[in-house]
């Protein structure tokens, strides 16, 4: 066994095949103790299968799974030192909150007194002590979620798996619960693996995110890395709102902007959809005629009525739609090439969106540090 395997949770080349369908494809991953690792992906991306492999409800077709140095191969779910919070919560309908939470402890050889004490403790943590005698059907969605969380946490698992933990809650409750979940996690120091399709949930909860697509993890990074530096076109498109351009390396790169960009690091590109050259403050190794993509987030585009001073990174168009969202306004701008771009503006003053009403001709511009270029 290689001595380098010091990570708390380690997946090595894990795969799961259902008939012809490869649900999880060669996933390797290390998670450190105390982390909140989010598996983010659309439905069918294999994230739930990966979670079920961890829980032991599915057996891997290939690969290894190590938790705290212990190989989990062949360990049945009821002997794994980890617990899961189910998407549907899966509370036992015939037991009240307290008995639901005690269920897991009753399977260990603990005295009645110890069980009662630990149930009391966890009920305090999730603030459910007043509702301990209620049956699941007498609890609200948020309360059920807390009971489910308490039932999993009371076992003091080495790893807590959460399947769409906030999926069944309404928006207001979600925000509140998100922060509470973080609080509890820090309080108890349990390592979390969260599966979600909701990027907002992943962004706020995770220390690191693994973006999944068609059974593979396509990028692992902190929320900021995933958002600001998407590794692939899929990630750029999947996370947040983005304008994506097809682009090629420009042959006239040096002559257009000799001073604006450090030639060693920067890349000059050309896109048929944009009137001006694209300057990206990032180097890329690609063939001269390779098909590249450039991603530009809407909030990084500046709108103005006057043409910008710079020679590069700008476009001209007319406002087609304005969506006022309260904290920000989103503009759909049609360029002369016919391409529509999304740009957003923080409503820092009450009237600032007024000057870019529908059908107003506008100029769009952005920094060379704002866009991201990639080849895959």
């Amino acid at each position: 066994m290689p001595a380098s395997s010091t990570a708390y949770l380690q997946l090595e080349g894990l795969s799961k095949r259902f008939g012809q369908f490869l649900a999880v494809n060669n996933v390797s991953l290390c998670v450190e103790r105390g982390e909140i690792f989010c598996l983010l992906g659309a439905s069918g991306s294999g994230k739930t299968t990966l979670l079920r492999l961890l829980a032991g409800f599915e057996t891997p077709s290939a690969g290894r799974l190590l938790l705290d140095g212990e190989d989990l191969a062949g360990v049945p779910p009821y002997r794994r030192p980890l617990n899961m919070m189910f998407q549907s919560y899966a509370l036992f309908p015939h037991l009240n909150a307290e008995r639901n939470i005690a269920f897991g402890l009753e399977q260990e050889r603990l005295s009645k007194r110890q069980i009662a004490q630990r149930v009391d403790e966890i009920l305090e943590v999730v603030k459910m002590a007043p509702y301990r005698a209620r049956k699941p059907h007498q609890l609200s969605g948020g309360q059920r979620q807390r009971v489910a969380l308490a039932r999993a946490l009371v076992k003091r698992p080495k790893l807590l798996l959460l399947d769409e933990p906030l999926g069944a809650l309404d928006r207001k409750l979600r925000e509140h619960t998100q922060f509470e979940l973080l609080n509890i996690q820090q309080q108890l120091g349990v390592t979390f693996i969260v599966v979600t399709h909701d990027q907002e949930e992943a962004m706020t909860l995770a220390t690191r995110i693994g973006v999944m697509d068609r059974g593979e993890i396509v990028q692992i990074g902190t929320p900021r890395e995933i958002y600001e530096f998407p590794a692939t076109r899929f990630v750029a498109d999947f996370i947040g709102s983005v304008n994506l351009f097809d682009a090629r390396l420009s042959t006239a790169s040096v002559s257009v902007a000799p001073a604006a960009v450090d030639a060693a690091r920067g890349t000059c590109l050309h896109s048929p959809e944009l009137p001006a050259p694209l300057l990206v403050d990032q180097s890329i190794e690609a063939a001269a005629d390779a098909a590249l993509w450039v991603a530009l987030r809407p909030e990084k585009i500046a709108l103005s009525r006057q043409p910008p001073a710079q020679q590069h990174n700008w476009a001209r168009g007319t406002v087609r739609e304005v969506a006022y969202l309260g904290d920000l306004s989103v503009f759909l701008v049609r360029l002369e090439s016919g391409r529509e771009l999304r740009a957003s503006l923080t409503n820092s003053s009450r009237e600032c969106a007024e000057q870019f009403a529908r059908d107003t001709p506008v100029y769009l511009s952005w920094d060379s540090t704002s866009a991201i270029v990639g080849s895959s």
Partner: protein
Amino acid sequence: MRLPARSGSLAQIRRRLARAASGRAVVVGIPLLWLLLFFLVPFLIVLKISFSTALLAMPPYAPLLEWVGHHIAALRVHLSNYQLLWSDPLYLDSLLYSVRVAAGSTLCCLLLGYPMALAIARAAPARRPLLLMLVILPFWTSFLLRVYAWIGLLKDDGVINNVLRSLHLIHQPIVMINTTFAIYVGIVYSYLPFMVLPLYANLEKHDGALLEAAADLGAHPWRAFWRVTMPLSLPGVMAGFLLVFIPAVGEYVIPSLLGPANQLMIGRVLSTEFFENRDWPVASAVAIVLLLLLLAPIVIFQRYHNRELEAER
């Protein structure tokens, strides 16, 4: 401007409610009428006869109300039939025997039927209809014929004894026909589907995630069954128990064809009183007592079921 419109819609709502109420009255009323005509009225007649005495007449019992003079009616209520039931050990014996046999065979049905229902509920969804059909298949042959068939299987020179003898496993036939054992076999065989179907209906609804949750929390599959599946299936067990136990107590055909001649079940006592002794009052008293005894488990089940329904809401 808005008030008349609103009151108009109110009137509309009221009319719609009235129509819905009358619709509900029809839907509830038809079965209610049915039960009144074909259950309550006959029950009252039987109750009336049970307080009468037997006569060699047509009908073969004394009327309760008799005109003894001008404008004077005499009400003659006899409790002698109920007294007889209590004092003659025949009735109590056969009643206890019936309850014992019914309870025993219901338990056998449960022990056989639960694994069957569980297996069907956990089979692949595409295979369930076939398995269910196999459970219901015996109903396509007459009940009477199927019980007769058991005579051919169980009798001294029947199929089972002949096979065992030809294999030289036995030399003397095993006496099975006309024993309590044969009644057990007949009841379990005939009523098994009534145990399997309500159990299946219950087990099929169970959320698979609950068992996964139990496993996740450290429960071995056996413990998960006892702590989760079993308690959640109790309404199904109750329904199956009543569907088998109640008809089994009053069962007439199976004990008549397969059972012992010296030990009668209450259903046979009842029919003997009616048709052979022509003692309608005693037979009616037996029927009434049986009904009252069987009412108890039904009431208990109803209570339980109501609580269950409330819990689901």
